[in-house]
């Protein structure tokens, strides 16, 4: 199954989920169209559109879609690691505070995703954290999170 097929079926599933979820929303009121009107309409539109494109795939087996070049194993691991790091950062930001969580994010990012040395990774992470703090907090007055665990 090609990526294009998977994408089409994924969109079809999204549309069907939209229809299913919309059915549980209030349908109609006396003075206005219901809350479910628009999402139901869009979900039906999505399903219809994907159905048309799937029929198109069937009819034109040699369709001119370019083959998808997926990442190789090493690049795939770097992407997965980056996503894991970014997600962890979302959870760590308010627990560890701006300084520690951001330093760890950038340090691990440089060290493991780009394979840089301990020293270079730590140096850049420190520089980035301090310069961004200076820019955001001092210059622009943006409130950056303090640690809820360490009380700092």
């Amino acid at each position, binding site marked *: 199954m090609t*990526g294009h097929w998977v994408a089409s079926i994924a969109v079809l599933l999204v549309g069907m989920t939209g229809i299913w979820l919309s059915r549980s929303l209030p349908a109609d009121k006396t003075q206005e169209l219901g809350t479910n009107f628009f999402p139901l309409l*869009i979900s039906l539109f999505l399903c219809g559109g994907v159905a048309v494109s799937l029929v198109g795939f069937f009819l034109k087996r040699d369709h001119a879609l370019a083959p998808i070049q997926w990442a190789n194993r090493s690049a795939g691991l770097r*992407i997965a690691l*980056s996503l894991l790091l970014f997600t962890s950062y*979302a959870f760590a930001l308010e627990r560890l505070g701006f300084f520690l969580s951001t330093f760890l994010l950038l340090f691990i990012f440089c060290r493991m995703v780009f394979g840089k040395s301990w020293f270079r990774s730590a140096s850049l*992470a420190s520089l980035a954290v301090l310069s961004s703090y200076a820019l955001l907090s001092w210059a622009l007055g*943006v409130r950056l999170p303090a640690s809820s665990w360490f009380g700092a």
Partner: protein
Amino acid sequence: MSVFEAFVQGLTVAARPENLLYAGTGAMVGTLVGVLPGLGPAATIAILLPLTFKLDPSSALIMLAGIYYGTQYGGSTTSILLNIPGEASSVVTTLDGYQMARQGRAGPALAIAAIASFVAGTLGVVGLMLLAVPLSEIALQFGPPEYVGLMVFGLTLASYLGTTSMIRAVTMVGLGLLVGTIGLDPISGTERFTFGWLTLQGGIGLIPVAMGMFGIGELLSSLEKPESSQSVIAPRNILPTREDLIRSSGPVVRGGLIGFLIGILPGGGALVASFVAYAVEKRLSRHPERFGSGMIEGVAAPEAANNSAVAGAFIPMFIFGIPSNVVMALLMGALMIHGIQPGPLFMKEHSAIVWTIIASMYIGNVMPLLLNLPLVGLFVRLLQFPYWILSTFVVLFTLIGSYSLENNPDDVLLTVIFGFFGYLARKLDYPLAPFVLALLLGPMLERAMRQALIMSPGYSPKIFFTQPICAVFLILAIVLFVVSTLRRAPVVDEAN
């Protein structure tokens, strides 16, 4: 108050030292980031948007407009020197600009690019000045059905102009509209698709989505490629010859006009404008066969077009509250963050802000010109900066930027989720811009559609075809959809 008086008043505000500083900073940052391959205006504005949160609305938009102009200028530098378009609308400039650089004429090419951008950008702002008020009066006659027609047409046009596959673009529009329904129902206030997650009650914001899809998505895509350094060709002469200037004058004016008109259209943008301007010049030339081998007209026309398209693109946002491309969507998002809703009353209720922005665009045009000419050497050095360092700063500003929107770590999570979605969409050749535009327009479209149906007896959809303006827009959208589905559009995705 006449247009001229309003403009002078706006110029007084825009020329204040602090606003000049914001315009200059925006233009400089935009130019510096525009030089970087991959980070186009949308990503740059999305990443730098949090810097403007603490500014007043005029200053914020002045800075963002400066960034937008700056990225347009910066993109041309790498196109000419390295054959790498810094952003999508500079793709066309590579065709002749790089050939000029290979012939030792990088200096004249860069100078003409800067001059053409400045002249056409100024022409575009004059057009904006003259057309903004009359169009805003027309916009006041628009009711819910007309808005539905206009928005459907705009989304269809955005899908048509911005991609090679209409079906995939329309799919992204559908997904964007569906994601836009998350949160509270705009009419009844009922919760939809929040799954008990408090963050989703306010809906999914444009900024985390855009930061994720453009910033994180681009970064993830770039992780697939090996780090590589680029060789740099040093320009020998900066100034163009008199012949270069004479040959460029026609293309600059024509490119400026084409760019402005395409910029006005919903879905039009700098990339489309530059393609069309280049095609027109080639068609008008006595030597079309020489295009692609270092013709100065091939640099002047697209650079003029992509800059004046910026001014044209402000019109639908100011007048109708409808962004014509993803960058305008972000600028509109910036205004909304400051509590200002662009639309038919925007010109009346916030005329001081509008005219300050228009006046600042003149200043914003001069700034990159002053930066671009003497700082070419610096831009080349920035390109030689290791990619891992640049990436680290992109990650930092994207994630902390989305957090600082509402001091909510859930926004960081949304940015990551949409970053991955943006990465997958890129891989599968689904355009990003229609999704972001649909996300922004979704709640407006829903409200207008439901209001129009409530106005119609028995909720009949006939109202969309009995109101002439709405009917024209919808018929145009249907024709465009059918024609483009049957025939592929020869344009690449601006967002990518």
